[in-house]
């Protein structure tokens, strides 16, 4: 093997939570998911919650799903508050959230939770399938392990948890959801193996995980832990172009051509 330290393991089980107080929507989504699992021959575990409080309790117990279909309007704790809790308090960026609502207009707050998408009720099976496709693609890219050597240790990090790498001379600083670490190596040798996971250079010494960027501006990236990573002048055009490419891939804008 050429790069023994970058071997990956695929994590198998996929968990989906559905949180809505509307029975029709819940059963519709549930049956779509079951159908999808059969069709694609994948293992999916679903769990239904009738309120945000119940879902929060489950999250606090340490069980984190891959995807949540989350209603916005609830009598007590609403979908926005729970979303904020997941992103800000739990610092969880990797769980995809699909908001479901009977309305078409959304407050800016909702966008700050960085949802995978918004669905308007009544939801259609095709829409659900699209969202599942999208989140499976993300999981396929990010639900793998990155390994590096630290002294005599072999350390493993889930790629989804990596925010960015920074070159520090002969060492590389790895910044993850759990904290940061230093190891011998170079970002240039790491980069090729992480290209499919959508890692890109925003600067010659910063290798960034696209999925962990929470705000893009033209000259810097705000990461999910609030770190600001610069986009160097010569990289601005490429960074713009890759955003266009990734988002176009995610948006299914070319469906009419099929």
């Amino acid at each position: 093997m050429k790069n023994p330290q970058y071997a990956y393991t695929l994590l198998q089980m996929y968990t989906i939570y559905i949180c809505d107080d509307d029975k029709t929507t819940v059963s519709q989504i549930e049956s779509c998911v079951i159908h999808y699992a059969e069709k694609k021959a994948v293992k999916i575990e679903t769990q239904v919650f009738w309120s945000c409080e119940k879902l929060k309790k489950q999250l606090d117990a340490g069980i984190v799903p891959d995807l949540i279909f989350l209603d916005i309007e609830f009598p007590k704790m609403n979908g926005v508050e729970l979303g904020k809790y997941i992103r800000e308090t739990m610092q969880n960026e990797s769980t995809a959230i699909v908001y479901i609502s009977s309305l078409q207009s959304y407050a800016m707050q909702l966008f700050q939770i960085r949802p995978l998408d918004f669905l308007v009720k009544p939801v259609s099976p095709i829409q659900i399938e699209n969202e599942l496709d999208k989140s499976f693609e993300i999981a396929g890219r990010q639900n793998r392990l990155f390994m590096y050597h630290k002294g005599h240790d072999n350390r493993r990090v889930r790629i989804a948890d990596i925010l960015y790498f920074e070159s520090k001379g002969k060492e590389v600083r790895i910044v993850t959801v759990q904290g940061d670490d230093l190891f011998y190596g170079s970002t240039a040798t790491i980069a090729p193996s992480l290209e499919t996971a959508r890692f890109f250079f925003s600067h010659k010494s910063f290798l960034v995980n696209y999925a962990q960027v929470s705000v893009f501006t033209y000259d810097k990236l705000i990461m999910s832990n609030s770190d600001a990573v610069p986009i160097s002048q010569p990289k601005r055009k490429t960074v713009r172009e890759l955003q266009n490419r990734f988002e176009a891939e995610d948006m299914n804008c070319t469906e009419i051509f099929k």
Partner: protein
Amino acid sequence: MSGISLCGFFLPFTMTQITVVLTDWIFAYTVYRFLSAFFPVKQEKNKTVEIVSYFLFWIIGSIQFLFCNTIVANIIYNLLSVFLITFNYDGKMQIRILAPLMIYVTGAAVEFMTAGFNTNAYFLKSPEGSVTIANIIEDRILFFTVGTLVSKLKNIKDGEKIPAIYWAAFIAIPILTFIFVPILLSVPLSYIQFIICTGLVFILDVLIYFVFDRMLYLQQKNRKSLVYDLQNESYRQQLEIMNESLKNTKVMRHDIKNQMLVIQGLLEKKDIEGALNHIQTITNEWSFSRKTINTGNVEIDSLINFKLSQAEQLHIAVTTNISIPEKIALRPFDTATLIGNLFDNAFDALKQIEESSRLLSITLRYSKGRLFLVFSNHYKNELRWKDGYPQSQKTDAAHHGIGLKEIENIAALYNGQLTIVAENGKFAATVMMYV
């Protein structure tokens, strides 16, 4: 070797040479005035570097003049050093090349003139003998005056949008003057003829600045009027939207009256079930009537709904996929231009193809500080590309390709970009902006 004695030191230079060196800082300062006309934006942080660069320009220039005073060295030094000085400022490469040329030719013309009035053998700091100290002073003053005048020409500063052909012309004029002057000098001329010729070269040179400035002014005016046209178009569309909704309200009011009469009739006959059925029918019909979007963003909603009704008239089936916040930091004018032009562009293409395949997909999506607008549709005729944009298939020749150019300009305002992919009859325009 001749020279002078100064404070007990013997300097191997003439008084004229010393005067040139001592007054050359005026020359450097004049270059600064000229460049301030060409480069309005200074890089704040490099103030010291800027001052040092002019100082070095003076010192090295003096050394060059004292020890290597040939025409070739003079031309090379002045053009190269002014070119390097331009890197103190933000600007286009064309301006960096044009500015030293124009400044040098002006300087030469001025020297040429001041010398011409007094003697007839002075050109480009020629060797000793013919130039008086008064000439040098006159030369500095005149050059400084021209520099100050030029720095007042505002439009030179905005010269970024000039077509390449004009750039070529403006760079060619000073170069041609350079070729012309030595030829002129090699012909034996009378004193009067010489004065006239040098005067003409000087006038010609100053005129270039004015023509250049004027042309830029016209160019800008032209652009502005285009913007006005677009603004007018967006107001016209707003009016149409209002008109349309007024018509809808009228129809609805008329409808409500008729429907109420039917229900009243049914109730009078005590046919409660019939009345309920009728109400159900009406409710169904209203909720399944025209497709509209309602994002809570008034400008975007009204514009898109208006365009959706236009699409309906053109028998275009539109799929919308819209998730944007109610409030978005886009100027209404920019919103109208962007969305209006993207729709019009798609409509133009779709009008050319048969009704059954008139499909348009629009996506507006806000995500992580960015707004994405994607319009995809089919097209039929081979596209003609110009400056990286497909040209409009409309017959309205004056507006060819302007829509997409305008979209790109607006995207650039938000540090974004427009990407167009068109192949095999499939067209997709993607606008990405940081908002």
